[in-house]
C-alpha cells in the first residue's frame, strides 16, 4: 500500500514540473508508455477537488429535512385536528360516531349520517367503477390494436386531470337530468323491490354522487390495474395458452389472477379518493343530513358537511364537531391509502426484473 501511494505522488510531481512543451514531447516520444501523463493529469484534477465533505453533509441534511417535513406535516395536521375537536370529543365521546343527530340549534351532533353518506356514495362508485376500469385495462393491455392503445390510455389518464369542480358542474347540468329522467325510472321499475331505488327521485342524491365519483376514480383504478397487468410476465400468459386456454381463459388465469393483489390495491386507492372527494359530491349529493335506504334520496357526506358548514359554524361546539368529522375522514383515508400503497408495492416490486 504505502509503496504504491509514494509512486503515485512521484508521478504527480513529474507531471506538475513538466511544462506544456515537455508534456507534448513525452507524448510523441515512443520511449515513455502512452497514457501515463493523461492519467496523472486526471488524477491531479481529481485530487485538487478535495473530498467535498461539507457540501455532502449539507446536502444530506437538506434531504433529511425535506423528508422529515412530510412527517411533520402529517403529525401537525393530526394533532391540530385532535386539539380542535376536543370540545366535541369531550361532550359526545365515542357515541359521536354512532349518532344521527345534527342539530346546531340544540347543540346535538353526531357523525353517522355523514359517515353513511360517504360510505354509500363511495360503494356505489366502486360498484360502477371497478368492473368498468378492469374492462378498460383488459382491453387496453390484452386486446386493443396498437394504434388505439396510446390514445385510450391517454384519455383515461386525462380524466384524472380534470378539476373536481368541473366534474361537479358537468354532473349538475348533464348527469342529474339523465339520471332523473332516463336511468332512475328504469331502476325504480326493475329494482324498486330491493328498496334501494325508491321515490322521491330528484336527480340529486347518493346515487348521483356515486356515479360522478365512479367517473372520477376510473382513471386511478384503471391506470394502476393496467400497470400491474403489464407487470405480469409473458411466460405466465404462454404457460396458460400452452395448456389450451382460450384468450379469455388466458386473461383470467394468466393475467388477472396474477395481478389480483395489485388490482385490489388499485381499487382501495380509488376508494381512498372517493371517500375524500368533496366538491363534485357536494354539488350533487343533495346535502340533507338523513339516512334513507333509497339511494335516489338526498344524503350528505363527511367532506361535504365540512365544506358547507365550516364558515357558518357559529359556536365552538359546532366547529369542534365539524373538526371531529374531519379527523375521522383523515384517519380513514390515511389508513385506506396506506393499505392500498402497500398492496400495490408488494406486487409491482421486482416486476421489471420478472418481465422477460
Amino acid at each position, binding site marked *: 500500500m504505502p509503496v504504491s501511494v509514494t509512486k503515485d505522488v512521484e508521478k504527480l510531481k513529474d507531471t506538475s514540473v513538466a511544462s506544456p512543451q515537455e508534456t507534448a514531447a513525452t507524448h510523441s516520444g515512443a520511449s515513455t508508455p502512452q497514457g501515463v501523463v493523461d492519467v496523472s493529469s486526471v488524477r491531479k484534477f481529481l485530487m485538487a477537488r478535495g473530498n467535498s465533505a461539507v457540501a455532502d453533509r449539507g446536502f444530506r441534511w437538506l434531504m433529511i429535512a425535506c423528508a422529515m417535513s412530510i412527517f411533520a406535516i402529517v403529525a401537525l395536521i393530526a394533532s391540530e385536528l385532535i386539539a380542535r375537536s376536543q370540545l366535541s370529543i369531550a361532550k359526545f365521546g365515542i357515541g359521536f360516531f354512532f349518532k344521527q343527530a345534527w342539530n346546531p340549534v340544540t347543540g346535538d351532533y353526531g357523525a353517522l349520517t355523514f359517515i353513511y353518506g360517504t360510505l354509500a356514495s363511495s360503494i356505489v362508485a366502486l360498484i360502477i367503477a371497478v368492473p368498468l376500469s378492469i374492462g378498460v385495462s383488459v382491453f387496453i393491455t390484452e386486446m386493443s390494436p396498437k394504434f388505439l392503445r396510446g390514445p385510450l390510455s391517454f384519455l383515461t389518464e386525462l380524466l384524472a386531470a380534470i378539476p373536481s369542480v368541473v366534474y361537479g358542474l358537468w354532473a349538475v347540468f348533464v348527469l342529474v337530468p339523465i339520471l332523473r329522467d332516463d336511468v332512475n325510472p328504469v331502476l325504480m321499475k326493475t329494482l324498486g323491490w330491493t328498496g334501494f331505488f325508491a321515490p322521491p327521485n330528484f336527480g340529486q342524491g347518493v346515487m348521483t354522487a356515486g356515479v360522478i365519483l365512479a367517473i372520477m376514480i376510473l382513471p386511478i383504478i384503471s391506470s394502476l390495474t393496467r400497470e400491474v397487468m403489464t407487470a405480469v410476465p409473458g411466460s405466465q400468459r404462454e404457460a396458460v395458452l400452452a395448456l389450451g386456454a382460450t384468450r379469455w381463459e388466458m386473461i383470467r388465469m394468466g393475467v388477472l389472477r396474477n395481478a389480483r393483489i395489485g388490482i385490489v390495491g388499485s381499487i382501495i386507492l380509488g376508494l381512498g379518493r372517493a371517500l375524500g372527494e368533496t366538491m363534485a359530491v357536494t354539488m350533487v349529493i343533495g346535502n340533507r343530513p338523513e339516512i334513507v335506504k333509497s339511494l335516489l334520496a338526498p344524503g350528505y357526506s363527511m367532506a361535504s358537511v365540512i365544506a358547507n358548514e365550516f364558515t357558518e359554524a357559529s359556536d365552538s361546539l359546532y366547529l369542534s364537531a365539524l373538526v371531529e368529522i374531519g379527523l375521522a375522514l383523515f384517519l380513514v383515508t390515511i389508513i385506506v391509502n396506506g393499505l392500498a400503497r402497500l398492496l400495490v408495492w408488494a406486487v409491482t416490486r421486482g416486476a421489471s426484473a420478472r418481465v*422477460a
Partner: protein
Amino acid sequence: MGVGIEVKDLNAWYGSNHTLQDINLNIQPNEATALIGPSGCGKSTFVRCLNRMHETNPIAKVTGSVRIGDLDIYNDASPVEVRRRIGMVFQRPNPFPTMSIYDNVASGLRLNGFRNRRVLDEVVERSLKHAALWDEVKDELKKKSGASLSGGQQQRLCIARALAVDPEVLLMDEPASALDPVSTAKIEDLIFQLKSQYTIIIVTHNMQQAARVAERTGFFLNGKLVEFDSTHKIFTNPRDKRTEDYITGRFG
C-alpha cells in the same frame, strides 16, 4: 400413446425475418427427438410452430403443413384444440405463483371444466409421480405455492402440469438450461421414462444431453434443417460438413 409428426414445407417469419425455411421432417412416435443448433437458428420457433404458439406473436406468420397423428393442425383444428393435445415445457420454469402445487398440476384440467375431485386427485398424483416430484411435495400439495419450490422442482412441476392433460406430444424447449447438474440429470431420467408413453421433442444446446436422451437428432442452422438422422449417426458420422463442424466445436 404418442403419435408421429409430419412436417411439410414449414416456413415461419417474425415480421420480415424469415426464421424457418422449408423445414421437412418426420418425427417417430414414442421417441425422443433432439433439436440442436447455435442460438438464434430457429429451434424455439420450430417447436412453437408445432403447437401453434408461434402465431400468438402479432408479427409472426407461418405457412406449410404439420400433421400430428392424423390431425392437420393448421387446417383441421383451432389453436386451442391443438394446444390441448400437445404439452409444452418452457426454458424458464413458469409455474403459476398464485396457485398451490396441486392447483398448478390440476390447472389444465380445470381450465377445460374438469371438476371431478376424485379423478383430479388421481391425475395430480399420477402426474407428479411421472414428473418424479411426488415424493418431494406430497405432504404439502395444497399448502405450498408453486413458486416456493426450487428451480429444478419448479421445472418438474411444469412437466407434471403438462402431463396432467395427457398430451400426445411433449415439447420441451431447453428444459434444463436454467437448472443445476443434479436437476438436469433428473429431467434427463424423466425424459427416458416418458418416452414410452409420449412423443418427445427436446430442444437443447447441450450435445451430450442430446446424445444421452434422444433416438434422433436434427441440426438447425440459420433457419434451415441441415441434417436429421439417428442421434448415433449425427454424432459419429454426420453427412454434412456444417453438422460435423458444429458437433466438434469447430463452428463459427
